[in-house]
């Protein structure tokens, strides 16, 4: 039982990280109807911004983290919007799919060429000290991840629901035409969405890299997990992305322990197939009504 609890808690910790990236997925989907197939690479790259800041500029870890978030907002937020998405406005959806797939390859290979193909150790926010709660061993680092991810999600949720700007973003996501009719500055709201997605991916990157080590190819696994999390939870709901992320994290961890580590990567996909078969709108998603 204590083993099981330990697995669930460490699963929640990684799941919370998937949830961050999955939220970004759903926000971008809602506001721009685009799916970013480079989201995994968006979770890989910011760790290298931090490593570069520490290695080449001698920055301390905390400063490197800030630099990483700022760089990811700049490159993966503004840059991604202006260079990839804006020029494709009005083009068929497939153009965005292919472009973001190409972007994924570009980011991956750039990191490999510029930084290193080796997995890099990455510092944790809190040390790896083990704490014991009634026989359940949890590392301080895991608690740190859970706390940071929870705080980020709570702050984001507060922003989206309790501030006027946040509600204008929700309005833009739910019905851009009506938002425009009411005078909402749609373009600005869409830009905010890109910035938030990039910041979330940056946070996820800083949290996951101590666990997975920073490696150029991390995006493949992370992107898939975040994508599946978003679909399992319900692609059109922030709440869904959170639930989806946590479910994937926990199920993945339990499967690795009780089924087989060899099949670990297949588990999210099995879950994806099951959800698509039996509940295509996702756990919390609502059916999308599309009018022509």
């Amino acid at each position, binding site marked *: 039982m204590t083993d099981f609890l330990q697995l669930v808690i460490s699963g929640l910790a990684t799941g919370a990280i998937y949830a961050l990236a999955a939220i970004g997925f759903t926000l971008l989907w809602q506001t721009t109807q685009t799916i970013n197939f480079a989201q995994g690479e968006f979770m890989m790259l910011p760790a290298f911004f931090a490593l570069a800041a520490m290695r080449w500029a001698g920055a301390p870890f905390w400063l490197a983290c800030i630099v990483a978030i700022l760089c990811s907002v700049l490159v993966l937020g503004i840059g991604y919007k202006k260079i990839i998405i804006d020029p494709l406005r009005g083009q068929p959806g497939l153009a965005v799919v292919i472009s973001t797939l190409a972007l994924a390859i570009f980011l991956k290979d750039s990191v490999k060429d510029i930084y290193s193909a080796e997995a890099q150790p990455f510092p944790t926010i809190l040390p790896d000290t083990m704490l014991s709660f009634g026989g359940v061993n949890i590392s301080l680092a895991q608690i740190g991840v859970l706390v940071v991810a929870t705080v980020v999600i709570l702050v984001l949720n507060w922003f989206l629901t309790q501030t*006027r700007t946040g*509600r*204008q973003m*929700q*309005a833009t996501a*739910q*019905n851009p*035409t*009506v*938002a*425009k*009719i*009411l*005078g*909402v*500055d749609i373009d600005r709201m869409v830009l905010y969405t890109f910035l938030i997605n990039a910041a979330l991916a940056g946070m996820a990157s800083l949290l996951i890299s101590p666990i997975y080590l920073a490696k150029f190819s991390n995006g493949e696994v992370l992107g898939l997990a975040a994508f599946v999390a978003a679909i399992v939870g319900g692609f059109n709901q922030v709440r869904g992305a959170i639930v989806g992320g946590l479910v994937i994290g926990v199920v993945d961890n339990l499967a690795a322990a009780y089924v087989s580590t060899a099949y670990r990567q297949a588990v999210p996909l099995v879950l994806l197939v099951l959800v698509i078969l039996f509940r295509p709108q996702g756990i919390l998603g609502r059916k999308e009504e599309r*009018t022509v």
Partner: protein
Amino acid sequence: MANAPAAARPDVVLSLRDVVSGYGKMTILNGTTCDILKGKITTVIGPNGAGKSTMFKTIFGLLPVRTGSITLNGKDVTNHAPRQMLDNGVCYVPQGRNIFSELTVRHNMELGTVALSDQSSVPERMEAMFKRFPILREKADVQAGTLSGGQQKLLEVARGLLLDPSLILIDEPSIGLSPLMVQEVFGILENLRDNGVSILLIEQNAKQALKLCDYGLVLEQGQTRIEDTGENILADPRIGELFLGGAMKQAG
């Protein structure tokens, strides 16, 4: 130039001159010209595809005017963006359901004040609107998606009125509403008209709308065929032909 705005007439709030507009390569408004009178309810009628909704979208800046001009109170507003049209005192309530179903009624209303330059008056305006529509106050904190169709329409109208518009463009407000609710919505419009607000309305139920409104405007194939009082249009034998599918003979 034929496209020059007409000399400002004090009794006209909105005028279109040879407006051409449409979607992509499709032209819907094909040189539409009309004058909408101040402080009156004017109903736009016409068969499906005549360009009624397109006309509203074009006036409100959601579709570009290719040629021609639109003037509001004598001021050129051709191709003004929706935000500018709101600043000009125009509000647009489109067809169908246009609420944000996952936000509360209060937050839906509040989004109607985004374009307000003086944000300090927002609470006061919201309060006045809740006073006017008590049902919205009652439901202020529930998700707007749970409202009935009629209540949603009321919410949309209330949201539009928060900016004290002087001209309201309202597209098929009665569609899908119960007869009682239709009466209520029309009652609101008449009340607004009595307070000096100009209303341009699209209605599917032409007969009923023409009885209620002051003026009518018959649109066919993107051009104005008749502009007259509601009564006169109701009595016009050509209307029957138009709605029975035949094309109208060019009016006088």
